[in-house]
């Protein structure tokens, strides 16, 4: 480690004598060929915002059809395509790339590194993602329609997909390769390029959560790639991995899928934990409570995520012992998750809290993610899960952890670091309006779905019995309110990029001594930390 930092310091030193501190290239070449972590981070974030709007529009098609009972707008097959592609886009195109974009921008700034360790691979992994989602969106126009089997792609149903199947699977392969490369890059950067004096247990929480997330990605993305490749050979080359007629087992796919799928859930939420652990201390003007236990809790959650997968499939007919094991292991996750929630609360306790937009989103995260955690505990209990499974209760549960959970944290991160990226303060009043509209509508949208599920409405149906009509209408109103509110977010970012009051280096009153990113000017120069800063033990984590 020390040898590496010496080399780095030396390289930085030599560079200063080079005398050409070149900026970005001009025009489109800058974006196609860039190896700069800030450019690539920006591209990831913009890409994710576009995907968020596309995936969100698909959700609005779903909510529009469900506004009243009866079929008014779309064919049931197209409805299934919308739910399927909405999920694939939101998971792999919106949430994951947003966290990768934040990681790209902030990890080098937070550990005092000049860039990511593998800059060309960084560029490649971004552009692969563009190829992946072009394929996925093209698959919508294939004969036989887009993928319509749910994002979980369960066989045998998924094998009934038309020409969209190979496109969707290849899209997943490319997105997976992109994620693996991104993860390798992050691990190598964090392990080798920290500023002198920044020990592992002195890293900011965002860096820690991303490090653990990156290991999860490397562990499970190949598993998913394997599962979808088996689908491909079953479909085109006559293998029968998932067909009982040939000695295979359709449930085998579900086990493989969820062995990937459960860690995937944490791949989306752990960076969000890191973001919230950055924001709350800044605006409570107090150090993060229980830093060490936060790190250990994150690691425990990551470990547990590998041994709970079958709780997504309790109704497939498992042996009693299997059901018991997966129930108890799943319940255990509540313990480290509880530690995180309690520690965030303790960070605010006796702090000096102010309520700028990033803090508002972090607070909403704290309340609403916790609600998603409670419903998560409920669905872990096997006997009652037999009732909840595949109903709107599940839809409500995972949207609570993903939308006011992961997505709110990402929005909080954008509001937190946007002045650092652009050098401008944004319109605080507009940001507050965006927050309140989002926070209210997200509950109007998802809370009634708990009631629908308990009353017996299955998920993934385009039409329903009239007893479910009332709450569906409320939920759809919330959906359109939430969706339209996001246009404010886009407008606000666009305006902030174009101009605004100049931001200081520290940006936030409480950010002083809360991380290396606040020691560089705003906007952060194209090249930062050519010479590594020196960190004195334990001072830099918030």
């Amino acid at each position, binding site marked *: 480690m020390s040898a590496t930092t010496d080399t780095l310091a030396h390289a930085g030193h030599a560079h200063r004598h080079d005398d050409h501190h070149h900026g970005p290239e001009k025009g489109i070449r800058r974006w196609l060929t860039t190896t700069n972590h800030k450019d690539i981070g920006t591209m990831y974030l913009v890409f994710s915002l576009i995907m968020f709007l596309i995936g969100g529009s698909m959700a609005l098609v779903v909510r529009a059809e469900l506004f009243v*009972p*009866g*079929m008014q707008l*779309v064919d049931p097959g197209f409805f*299934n395509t919308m739910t399927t592609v909405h999920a694939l886009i939101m998971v792999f195109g919106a949430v994951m790339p947003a966290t990768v974009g934040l990681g790209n921008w902030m990890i080098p700034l937070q550990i005092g590194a000049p860039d990511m360790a593998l800059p060309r691979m960084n560029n490649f992994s971004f552009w692969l993602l563009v190829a992946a989602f072009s394929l996925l969106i093209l698959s919508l126009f294939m004969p036989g329609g887009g993928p319509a089997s749910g994002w979980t792609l*369960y066989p045998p149903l998924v094998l009934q997909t038309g020409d969209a199947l190979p496109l969707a699977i290849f899209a997943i392969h490319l997105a997976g390769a992109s994620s693996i490369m991104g993860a390798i890059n992050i691990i190598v950067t964090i392990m080798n390029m920290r500023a002198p004096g920044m020990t592992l247990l002195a890293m900011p929480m965002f860096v820690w959560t991303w490090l653990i997330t990156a290991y999860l990605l490397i562990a499970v993305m190949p598993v998913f790639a394997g599962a979808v490749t088996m689908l491909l050979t079953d479909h085109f080359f006559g293998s029968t991995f998932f067909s*009982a007629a040939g000695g295979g087992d*359709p*449930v085998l796919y579900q086990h493989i899928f969820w062995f990937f799928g459960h860690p995937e859930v944490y791949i989306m939420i752990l960076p969000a934990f890191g973001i919230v652990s950055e924001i709350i201390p800044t605006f*409570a*003007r*107090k150090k*993060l*409570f*229980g830093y*060490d236990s936060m790190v250990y809790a994150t690691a425990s959650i990551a470990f547990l995520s590998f041994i709970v997968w079958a709780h997504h499939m309790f109704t*497939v*007919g498992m042996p*009693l012992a299997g059901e018991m094991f997966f*129930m108890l292991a799943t*319940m255990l996750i509540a*313990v480290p998750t*509880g*530690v995180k*929630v*309690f520690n965030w609360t303790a960070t*605010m306790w006796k*702090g*000096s*809290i*102010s309520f700028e937009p990033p803090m508002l989103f972090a*607070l909403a995260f704290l309340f609403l993610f*916790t609600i998603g955690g409670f419903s998560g*505990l409920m669905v872990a*209990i*096997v*006997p*009652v899960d*037999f*009732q909840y*499974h*595949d*109903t709107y209760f599940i839809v409500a549960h995972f949207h609570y952890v993903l939308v006011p959970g992961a997505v709110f944290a990402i929005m909080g991160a954008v509001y937190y670091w946007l002045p650092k990226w652009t050098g401008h303060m944004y319109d605080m009043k507009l940001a507050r309006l965006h927050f309140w*509209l989002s926070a209210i509508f997200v509950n109007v949208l998802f809370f009634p779905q708990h*009631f629908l599920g*308990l*009353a017996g409405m*299955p998920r*993934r*149906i385009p*039409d*329903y*019995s*009239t*007893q*479910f009509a009332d*709450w569906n*209408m*409320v939920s759809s*109103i919330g959906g359109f309110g939430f969706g339209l509110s996001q246009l404010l977010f886009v407008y606000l970012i666009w305006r902030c990029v174009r101009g605004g009051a100049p931001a200081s280096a520290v940006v936030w009153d409480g950010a002083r001594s809360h991380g290396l990113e606040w020691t560089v000017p705003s906007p952060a120069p194209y090249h930062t930390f050519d010479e590594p800063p020196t960190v004195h033990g334990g001072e830099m984590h918030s």
Partner: protein
Amino acid sequence: MKSPKRALAGGVALLLAGAPAYAAWDLNLRVGVTPLSRDIYGLHMLILWVCVAIAVAVFAVMIYSVATFRHSKGAAPAAFDHSTAAEVIWTIIPVLILVFMAIPAARTLVAIEDSSGSELTVKVTGYQWKWQYEYVEHGVSFFSTLDRRHDVARQLASGVDPRTIDNYLLEVDNPLVVPQGVKIRVLITAADVIHAWWVPDFGMKKDAIPGFINELWFTADKAGTYRGQCAELCGRDHGFMPVVVEVVPRAEFDAWLAARKTTE
């Protein structure tokens, strides 16, 4: 600022207008009509109230902190950043609560998985998009599909108002008929893709998987008609393959079965 408000007001007005027509603001799980469904309901309420109690405590602390320790009120931040005692406490207490919940959950689970001593076996096969019911010991079998009137009404832009149809989408041509108060074992499989057979009032759902046979059991102790749906995405018409079960007194069931046998 004005237009979202107006949209919200419009939505609320629309809701109030719609409410008397549907009048079904159901909030909670149904208690159901089997011993298992009642156990499951009890377990559901227990966990729900435990969660509510924890939520009240945790949210109270959060709200108090947000309301009290405000920069705008001149609050000075404290310097502490950990407390081993507090962290040990809020690790151990959740573990105890989990154990408290796991015990009744495990007990109910054992009962659910014990299908011994059943008096009647029905084999259920899922097809895209209908169910087949087979009374294994009696050689009676038939298909059960969405009722014709409902099928017409659910077509895209059919012009039929769903509110004019009773039990919209939850009616079939041939319901499954079972005797009241008898332990019934249901064997579940599928012929094409995975489906799931679910009747909320019986507390159970199980996947119907091609090439494999799953089982569940129920003892319905109240006569009546119970409705459910396919609960695993099975293609285009997944939303249109309801499950309808008629629970009738023993004598009535025997008469029905005898009549059914002669028509086969």
